[in-house]
């Protein structure tokens, strides 16, 4: 895919850096995120079942 040209629609939003993309699929980091996200979800589920 080519990068968007100036003033094209896709030129304006923030896009992830290569580091951000790396961490999105880094196994160790994502195992940690799995735990954190689950904790968040449990909090929401608890709040909803009150």
């Amino acid at each position, binding site marked *: *895919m080519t990068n*968007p040209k100036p003033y094209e*629609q*896709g*030129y*304006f*939003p*923030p*896009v*992830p850096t290569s580091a951000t993309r790396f*961490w*999105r*699929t*880094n*196994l160790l980091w*994502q*195992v940690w*995120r*799995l735990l954190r*996200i*689950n904790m*968040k*979800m449990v*909090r*929401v*589920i608890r*709040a*909803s*079942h009150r």
Partner: protein
Amino acid sequence: MARLLILGAGVAGHTAASFAQRWLGKKHEVVVVSPNSMYNWIPSNIWVGVGRMKPEKVVVELAPIYRKAGIDFRQARCLSIHPEGGESGGQPYVTVECTDPARRGEREEIAYDYLVNATGPKLNFGATEGLGPEGNSLSVCTYGHAEAAARAFEESIQRMERGEHQEIVIGTGHGMCTCQGAAFEYLFNVEQELRRRGVRDKATLHWLSNEYEAGDFGMGGMHLKRGGYVTHSKVFTESLLAERGVNWHLRAHTTAVEPHKVHYETLDGENHELPFDFTMLIPPFAGVGLQAYDRKGAEITERLFNPGGFMWVDGDYQAKPFEQWEASDWPRTYQNPHYPNIFAAGIAFAPPHPVSKPMKSVNGTPIFPTPPRTGMPSAMIGKAVVASIRDMLNRGATEPTHTASMAEMGAACVASAGTGLFNGTAASMTVYPIVPDFKKYPEYGRDLNLTFGELGLAGHWIKYILHVMFLYKARQRFGWSMIPE
């Protein structure tokens, strides 16, 4: 012994039936009427639609589960509700038409003491000319539709492999659709699959949506704390669209789908066209069209259902402008105001109004997302309704005892952006509450400590774990009731 009749065996109905049998089964009778012999875990249809999961993996046969649990399952479609019984009074009943192959087309009456309407949506393809699998676009709303979409997608990929260019349009097929999230997931799964097959450069992808801004998803979007800012979901959504090289077309009402062209009108009144080789467009939802009759046989459908076919419950249905909407407008007990032994659960209940701000084009065409209708609230409502009925039957409660307002509950949602054990990604999101409450949370309508979102492989794992967990729960295997809705 009383009879609880549940119409529908989807997310809301199956949850309701499972808990009803557990709580009431020894003393009372639980009957489920549903036209399909299968329970479909609909969120995973997305993976079926790109050919990465077999349709058999997203369904569970209902009859053996219900037989084992002691639930009376009738494979049939409900046609009408008679809440006052027949001419000579007597018990209220529904009429159904059998859909099981052995008795197809036969009609019967089923009496009830309590009724839960969990019939979900009618996929209203007829609202847009040429929309839907019988017209010129594809769908992933049922496992059958998703399987057909996967076949068409494979053909499209093969064309790309032969060097042809393909235009792909994915989004909403009408100005008043909900379920943008499902289309959004499909878009990114398609995009990832094209990359996996090495043909991404051969396709131009378009996101076509009735949202005012990307990331609205029928909830007015959501604000998240991220990187030192409070940021609207529009930013993250556009970021993902830009990152994956997708063009987006918003504020759009699809007016017609021709064999290779989508026509749409935008809020500014302009008419546009998008040529396509492959398109998946979500239909708008309506109620399934049940009729209602009083004891003399006169039609009273409007006493039970709104004009869209959704059932009136305890919401505040007074028409008021967006600025005056309140969290308290949203139903809490889902009891019908005219007939206290009738409840609605899941998509079948009539919402008081949308969550996203209603907009009209300069030509007067309404173009805005209708209220979000996701799985977690559907299941929670099903469970709450049955808990109230249990207390009415067993403890003599005169009013519903359990509530499940969408303005008082949150939702955890995982939107797949591509499958794969090591390279899949999904956006994990939580919102609390689903319907913003600007009295309680004056700034953004939601609790920003409980509203968050993040994209990554962990989200894909969660999505897959949910797939396994909810199908396990649907099968009523050991410990199923411990799995939250």
